[in-house]
């Protein structure tokens, strides 16, 4: 009997070791090793373990490097108010002992979805207290404020305070809530592309002439003929031929698009729509997330360049609004058409308004911004829809203030109901930070 127990134990042990060994070293699906669901920001890539766990051993320094590999640039651009270097001086040893702000994972613990708050923070919201508990003594305005309200009331952020710091508030105080109709930037980055990097762009088909292609693919050719590709002289071969492998690609994907649209592809793979592709994982579809409401009809549409930029037509106006609403079904998205912003877009569709004056989903979530590429300033579309979110005050300076006052922008973005109805109306709450800043400046 004892012999059989040992035999069963050995067989079970070998089976377990084989199973986990196979999963660890050979299988691409490693979900058995997940110690908990990842946060909203990372759940898409939770199965790309090595994206964060770059080494088996090494602890917090290894994880810190993983964080900064993806997020260092945005922290730098945000003029990070609490960089690691502020906490490495030994005089802060007592503070670090309580809250080790040298490491991202002190506040952003992964695989703890059940205790993850907004901005991916896994600490109680009174974390500012540890270093700033005396602020009430210095400023009367702050005397009776709750310690968990610093970074949640629309006044401060831990990292990005570019639109919230005191001098900026004073300098930009006042003014009408809505300015004269602004002229928004029009993207021109694509016009600067050197087509010589893609010698096959003039070709229509390896075996067929244009007439034959038109006869065989009339719908596709019709859509293409009105596109910016056709206007720029990019023919079928521009997307369907691969210069390296000298092959014809039936359904071009992002690898082909980024031959020319490098920065757009880079932004896309940094955002929620394309971050999986950056980790060589299958593209995301809305059926895999419950964070927002999505339409059933497109629940299984995999996100790639063509899911918004319909192939052949590549209509950027469609991509800027209609494409979003083919998937997004939340209150904010559904309220767009009847909102003041949506009405401006309707005027554009009715040819009553210029493109530069209309507001679409992309105006705020994938804005056209000035960038310096190869020493030249161009206007390019930021395809990372998260670039000006997390927190939403990132949107204030580059987007909202093009048309609205700072005060209105701060109030509007702090009003959850106003965000839900897509800014149909005035803010229902007022953030007093500008008032306090002006009062102090006058004193």
């Amino acid at each position: 009997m004892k012999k059989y127990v040992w035999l069963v134990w050995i067989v079970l042990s070998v089976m377990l070791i084989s199973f986990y060994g196979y999963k660890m070293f050979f299988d691409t699906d490693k979900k058995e090793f997940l110690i908990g669901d990842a946060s909203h920001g990372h759940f898409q890539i939770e199965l790309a373990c090595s994206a964060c766990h770059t080494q088996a051993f090494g602890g917090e320094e290894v994880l810190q490097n993983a964080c900064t590999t993806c997020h260092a640039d945005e922290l730098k651009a945000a003029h990070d108010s609490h960089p690691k270097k502020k906490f490495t001086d030994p005089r802060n040893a007592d503070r670090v002992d309580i809250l080790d702000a040298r490491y991202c994972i002190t506040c952003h613990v992964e695989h703890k979805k059940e205790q993850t708050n907004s901005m991916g923070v896994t600490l109680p919201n009174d974390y500012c207290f540890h270093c700033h508990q005396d602020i009430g003594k210095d400023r009367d305005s702050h005397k009776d404020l709750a310690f968990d309200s610093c970074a949640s009331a629309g006044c401060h952020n831990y990292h990005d305070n570019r639109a919230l710091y005191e001098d900026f508030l004073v300098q930009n105080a006042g003014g009408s809530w809505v300015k004269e109709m602004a002229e928004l930037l029009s993207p021109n980055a694509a016009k600067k592309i050197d087509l010589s990097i893609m010698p096959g762009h003039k070709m229509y088909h390896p075996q067929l002439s244009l007439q034959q292609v038109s006869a065989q693919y009339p719908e596709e050719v019709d859509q293409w003929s009105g596109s910016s590709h056709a206007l720029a002289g990019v023919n079928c071969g521009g997307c369907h031929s691969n210069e390296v492998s000298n092959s014809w690609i039936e359904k071009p994907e992002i690898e082909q698009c980024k031959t020319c649209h490098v920065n757009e592809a880079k932004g896309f793979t940094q955002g929620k729509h394309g971050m999986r592709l950056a980790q060589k994982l299958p593209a995301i579809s809305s059926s895999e997330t419950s964070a927002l409401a999505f339409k059933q009809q497109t629940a299984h549409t995999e996100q790639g360049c063509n899911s918004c930029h319909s192939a052949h037509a590549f209509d950027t106006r469609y991509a800027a609004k209609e494409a979003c609403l083919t998937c997004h079904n939340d209150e904010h998205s559904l309220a767009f058409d009847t909102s003041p912003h949506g009405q401006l877009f309707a005027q554009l569709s009715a040819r009553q308004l210029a493109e530069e004056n209309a507001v679409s989903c992309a105006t705020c979530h994938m804005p056209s911004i000035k960038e310096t590429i190869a020493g030249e300033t161009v206007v390019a579309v930021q395809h990372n829809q998260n670039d000006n979110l997390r927190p939403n005050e990132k949107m204030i300076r580059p987007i909202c203030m093009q048309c609205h006052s700072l005060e209105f922008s701060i109030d509007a973005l702090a009003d959850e109901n106003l965000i839900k109805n897509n800014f149909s109306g005035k803010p229902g709450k007022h953030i007093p930070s500008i008032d306090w800043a002006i009062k102090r400046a006058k004193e």
Partner: protein
Amino acid sequence: MKKIVFGMVIFMGLMGLTACNNKETTTGIEPKKYTDSLFAVMKADRTNYTKLVVKRLGPAGAGVIKPDEHWQDIENGALLPAQMFRAGAEAVAEMTDDFTYSLQSIWPINKQNAPKTPVEKAGLEFIAANPGENYYGEEDLGGVKYYTAVYPDVAVSDACTSCHNDHKDSPKNDFKIGDVMGGVVIRVPL
């Protein structure tokens, strides 16, 4: 017998000399000399940036740069001298753990730059009360023993005094050129 005793005395003498030599080879620069030297470099750079860059090229000079607290946010913005000093300290901290330094004051514009540890507090008070003198001490922080030196940071230009005297967050508004405005704290782990 005498030969044996004589031989032993010579042997012990040689051993002693060898031991002395060993001791000499392990002796490095003394902490005070080390921190004094570091401060000399810091003070020279700080004074030169204030006088030769900010004063000469800023609003009081050619007006081609705009020294400003929010220098990253304005065109042709340049770091204020205190920020330049702090940027140097942060850059050094990214390169080495052999020493750290910071700029502090008992009249800080940013309250986070007020002295925190007992040695910092004693040092800052001492250099303010004894112009021209430095303060040296030792302290334990985070389980590590440090040699801590505090040096006076003196107003070398009216750019220093006017900025601090006019700033809304400054607790002291009557600084004059030559006044001790704060202190440079240098720490060396022992």
